[in-house]
């Protein structure tokens, strides 16, 4: 007996459909389990974790691990908690996202609406730069940051993230503006509108969705970065991911699993929040990063 509605060609039996739902539910549990374990165990006293039963709900609920992770846990040598590093990450991500998005919008506009010889080549080179393994630039980057006297600072990280974020932000805006009617730009030009006037009055007002996609993706990538943070900003300027890794992998003292889980949720919270609030744009950015050109 066909269960599926008539407008689809694929029909399946009741047994098959039960299996489908079972399979999908099992996978939903598989994907949710780590988040559930992190949440549950961040609200338990340490003994409840070490005595086993990672999956069970807390017997004594406590927010102590959260307070400790936020303000007193030992990161490296100082018992500062993750708060200063959370602030570092924000101070790094906000300017880096803003600058790379503005640059991407301008680049995308030039590359699609002001064709000149070699534009495709420039775009190709920019595109490839998104996909290089960053290990290839670590050594010279460390030297340049040293020469500029901003190694080990948030400014250094902002520079790094802007530089290696421009490729992706240009890709987003270029693909979006490629579909924007060029006749409108030509018409405005004939009416005497200049380069920036066209950008401000014609392109930007319809760029809302792509600005959202670009900001979300730059933010996610920059917030989640570990390699650059670990290479260029250890110590007090470290971003959240580096601080979390130091907290979890520090070899001294008792392993406070509950504090680690609370810290992991804190490190995940901003991007998770963005995903929940603006998942649509998140997915669109994901697809734009895979279907290029």
């Amino acid at each position, binding site marked *: 007996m066909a269960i*599926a509605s008539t407008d689809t*060609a*694929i029909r*399946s039996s009741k047994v098959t459909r039960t299996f*489908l739902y079972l399979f*999908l539910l099992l*996978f*939903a549990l598989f*994907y949710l389990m*780590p988040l559930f*374990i992190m949440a549950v165990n961040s609200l338990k006293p340490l003994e409840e*974790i070490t005595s*086993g*039963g990672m999956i069970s709900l807390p017997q004594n609920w406590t927010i102590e691990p959260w307070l400790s992770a936020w303000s007193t846990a030992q990161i490296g040598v100082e018992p500062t908690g993750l708060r200063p590093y959370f602030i570092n990450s924000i101070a790094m991500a906000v300017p880096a996202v803003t600058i790379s998005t503005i*640059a991407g919008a*301008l*680049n995308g506009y*030039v590359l699609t609406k002001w064709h000149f010889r070699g534009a495709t080549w*420039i775009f*190709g*080179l*920019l*595109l490839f*730069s998104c*996909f*290089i*393994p*960053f*290990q*290839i630039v*670590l*050594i010279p980057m460390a*030297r340049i940051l040293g020469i500029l006297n901003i190694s080990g600072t948030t400014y250094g990280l902002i520079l790094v993230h802007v*530089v*290696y974020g*421009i*490729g992706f932000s240009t890709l987003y805006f270029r693909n979006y503006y490629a579909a924007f009617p060029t006749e409108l730009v030509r018409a405005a030009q004939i009416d005497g509108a200049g380069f920036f006037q066209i950008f401000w009055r014609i392109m930007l007002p319809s760029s809302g969705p792509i600005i959202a996609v670009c900001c979300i993706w730059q933010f996610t990538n920059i*917030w*989640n*970065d570990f390699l650059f943070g*670990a*290479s260029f900003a250890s110590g007090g300027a470290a971003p959240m*991911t580096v601080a979390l*890794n130091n907290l*979890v*992998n520090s070899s001294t003292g008792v392993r406070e*699993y509950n504090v*680690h*889980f609370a810290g*992991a949720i804190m*490190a*995940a919270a901003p991007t*998770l929040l963005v*995903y929940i609030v603006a*998942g649509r744009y998140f*997915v669109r950015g994901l*697809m734009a*990063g895979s279907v*290029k*050109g």
Partner: protein
Amino acid sequence: MAATDPMLEGADFRTRLQNWLPKIVLAPSFAVMVLFVYGFIAFTIYLSFTGSRMLPSFDLVGWQNYERLFRVRQWDTAIVNLGIFAGLYIVISTIIGLLLAIFLDQKIRGEGILRPIFLYPMALSFIVTGTAWKWILDPAIGLEVTMQQWGFENFQFDWIKDSEMAIYTIVIAAVWQSSGFVMAMFLAGLRGIDNEILKAAQMDGASNFQMYRRIILPQLRPAFLSAFVILSHLAIKSYDLVVAMTDGGPGTSTWLPALFMYEYTFTRNQMGIGAASAVIMLMTIAAIMVPYLYAELREKN
């Protein structure tokens, strides 16, 4: 030749500025790219032929670093691990992603809830993912103890502490992180397939299996290709996940090339060898990305 045209000479500075503005606006990004990407690549390639140790030095030593690199045991480990990790990661993520997409495409009730659940790991940092899975797979507090307490007393799962098996735990965490993304790509592909063709095939008596085998999967080829390119690129770059889960251990058993490069360059003061390993990583990724990007760009023009 606007600049030498007497009619335009000096008279219309504004027009000429307007002609140059697009290039002037693009110039900073272009300069940054040339210096920070291609200049740096050239610099690292140069370093890979020098005797650099703790600091860069400029005395050329020929292919020595590459010869030594391929004699170092840890590089062997890293390459073998990359083979195991990338192979399993790509194949398993693709299979799971494809199955989830096909199943979700059957007019499933609650698709709007399931889809975001499958995809959310992609929003997390590998450090968070690694931390979670490190403790879940830790035999002292995680899955093993829990299963034993539930009555499966002989249950054992201590791969993360086993130098032979630890690399497979990295695969588990990495698949958890990215299979939802592969699902999203296949789902987009499936939604783009014309239902009329399928209906016609059905009238001709094709079974569901035949329709997938003969019509649907062949049409998903671009999605397969994109998934392969993105996943292999992620696998070659993998660094954070290993650092968070095992930090390369037990011993050096979960080293990947990215970890090797970092260790040799910044911890063991063998910058020449580190640079050589980075060059090999770049070449590997370029071998996959350049043809792909070339094809994608050419199609559009």
